[in-house]
């Protein structure tokens, strides 16, 4: 369905000395430096998969998506989507794909939503009957009825994103790229949007590639994640596996009467680490569930301090990912992670 082979993208950037002097100097004497945005990545995605593509800002996510959609031509390597090379057959490939790009609207700004859909119908040459059915269904699932008559520019962000999502799926594309579809939305809208994406995936077997910073999106929508950092893939595999592999790290938050006096109990030294906690009364301990049990940590703490309250944090995908990023920065554990992927 989607195959990516040894995909690379390099940009040439003008190197500038700081300040006005530097700016003037660069007018006459330009020095370029090469930025390796994507450094030779490989993956395959089958029809009907829902894949979370995650990474920190500037990790190379958007660049990859631009190459998958055909907007950017890679420096080297190859992409095929449905047997087509997107950047060579951009318009042909466009028939089979849909996309939501964060806050860049694909609807027509001045005209009512319904008219926007009508134009998209003509752009994608959707048969009338199919179009009517699709719109009727989306209207119900996403509750669009009250919005259809309003010009796009008058919609709130959440309303716009619902309409936007419907537009991306309108021509029943085989693949949909969602670049941060839930950014800046309230929880109610997020839930609705996740439900919609899942439903489309189940109903039509739409392949979904999703980038997001909201790990809840990933947990609810995706069965697989690809983590990219610094232009290389750190992890590619199932959501469950990564939890098992890296989810042994537990965190417990304790509420202490007197935080000032806190020192790590002797029995826990070498077993648990103190995490920075902003709150004045709280102490957070992190430890490996394999080597030390939660009950032991708790009883040690309770024997030494007066504990007002405690809270065991779930092993969230978020903490796992954060850990992976940190390891990458340190460099040390990198190989181990890659070997597991």
């Amino acid at each position, binding site marked *: 369905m989607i195959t990516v082979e040894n995909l690379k993208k390099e940009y040439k950037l003008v190197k500038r000395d700081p300040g006005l002097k530097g700016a003037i100097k660069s007018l006459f004497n330009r020095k370029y430096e090469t930025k390796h945005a994507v450094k030779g990545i490989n993956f395959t995605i089958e029809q009907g998969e829902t894949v979370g593509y995650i990474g920190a800002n500037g990790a190379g996510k958007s660049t990859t998506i*631009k190459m998958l959609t*055909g*907007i*950017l031509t890679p420096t080297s390597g190859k992409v095929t989507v449905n047997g087509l090379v997107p950047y060579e057959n*951009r*318009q042909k490939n466009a028939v089979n794909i849909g996309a939501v790009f964060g806050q*860049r609207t694909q609807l*027509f700004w001045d005209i009512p939503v319904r008219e926007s859909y009508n134009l998209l119908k003509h*752009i994608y040459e959707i048969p009338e009957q199919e179009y009517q059915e699709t719109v009727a269904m989306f209207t119900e699932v996403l509750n669009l009825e009250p919005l259809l008559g309003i010009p796009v520019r008058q919609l709130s962000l959440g309303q716009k994103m619902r309409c936007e999502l419907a537009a991306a799926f309108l021509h029943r594309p085989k693949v949909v790229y969602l670049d941060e579809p839930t950014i800046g939305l309230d929880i109610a809208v997020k839930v609705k949007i996740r439900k919609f994406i899942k439903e489309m995936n189940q109903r039509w077997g739409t392949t979904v590639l999703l980038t997001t910073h909201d790990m809840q999106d990933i947990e609810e929508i995706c069965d697989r994640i690809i983590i990219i950092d610094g232009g290389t893939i750190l992890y590619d595999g199932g959501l469950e596996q990564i939890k098992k592999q890296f989810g042994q790290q537990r965190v417990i938050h304790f509420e202490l009467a007197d935080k000032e006096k806190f020192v790590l109990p002797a029995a826990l030294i070498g077993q648990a680490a103190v995490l920075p906690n902003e709150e004045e009364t709280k102490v957070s301990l992190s430890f490996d569930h394999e080597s030390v049990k939660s009950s032991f940590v708790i009883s040690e703490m309770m024997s030494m301090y007066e504990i007002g309250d405690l809270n065991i944090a779930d092993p969230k995908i978020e903490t796992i990912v954060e850990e992976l990023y940190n390891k990458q920065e340190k460099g040390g554990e990198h190989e181990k992670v890659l070997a597991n992927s």
Partner: protein
Amino acid sequence: MRRYTKLYWEFAKSHMKVMMEYRIDFLIGVASVMLEQFASIFFVKVVFDHIEQINGWSFYEILFIYGIAATGRSIHQIFFDNLWTLGWQYIRPGKLDRLLIRPVNPLFHVVADRLHQDGFGQLIIGLIILGTAIPQLDLVWGAAEIAMLVIMIISSGLIFVAINLFFATFSFWMIDSLPIVWAVFNLSDFARYPLTIYHKGIRMFLTWIIPYGFTAFYPAAYFIDKSGYKEFALWTPVAAIVCCVLAYAFWNRGLKAFASTGS
């Protein structure tokens, strides 16, 4: 081709709906362009109140040249005005990316995205000027002449479009080339007067480098015997086609460059 005609019609319909919804904006737009044009014609009129001819050209002959330019420009302004906005509306905010993943020609999409109301003012004024000037010219008008006039006006419009497209395309490399497009466009004012009144260098420039000469003076010269350019004027449609082909080829190059660098 049929598909694009139909698609354009669908785009145009929704633009017209918006225009009708904002009737006041529409009327103000049309009126302001007409006022602007009247002002510059009035200026020419004042000049001619004091002298009879400029370099052998009478007031109505100059008005005729003016009329062709204004009508030709209206084609550009009504249908292709969005080319102005390529840099700041499409490339800078990343909106072009959106168009690139649709199954239509991106240039078509950019052009179809707007139907400019002010252009209608330009069209009305152009037709009024032509209507005033033509009866005063020493010409017999038959079907052939009218057909020729229409061809000339369309060619004039296409040259305006091609030149704008060519310079707007620079936006692919420099994000927004609007200042260049604007500077070049202002040269078209020169072409609204007989090119014979200018120095040879300017004449050559407006004929061979930035061919605005073909937007007004040459097409008009076809109908005015004494101009001495009656035959040369026949090249106008050819010039229009060549300009469009060149500009479109350049646009495609720009698009390719954009695909390798991104915004």
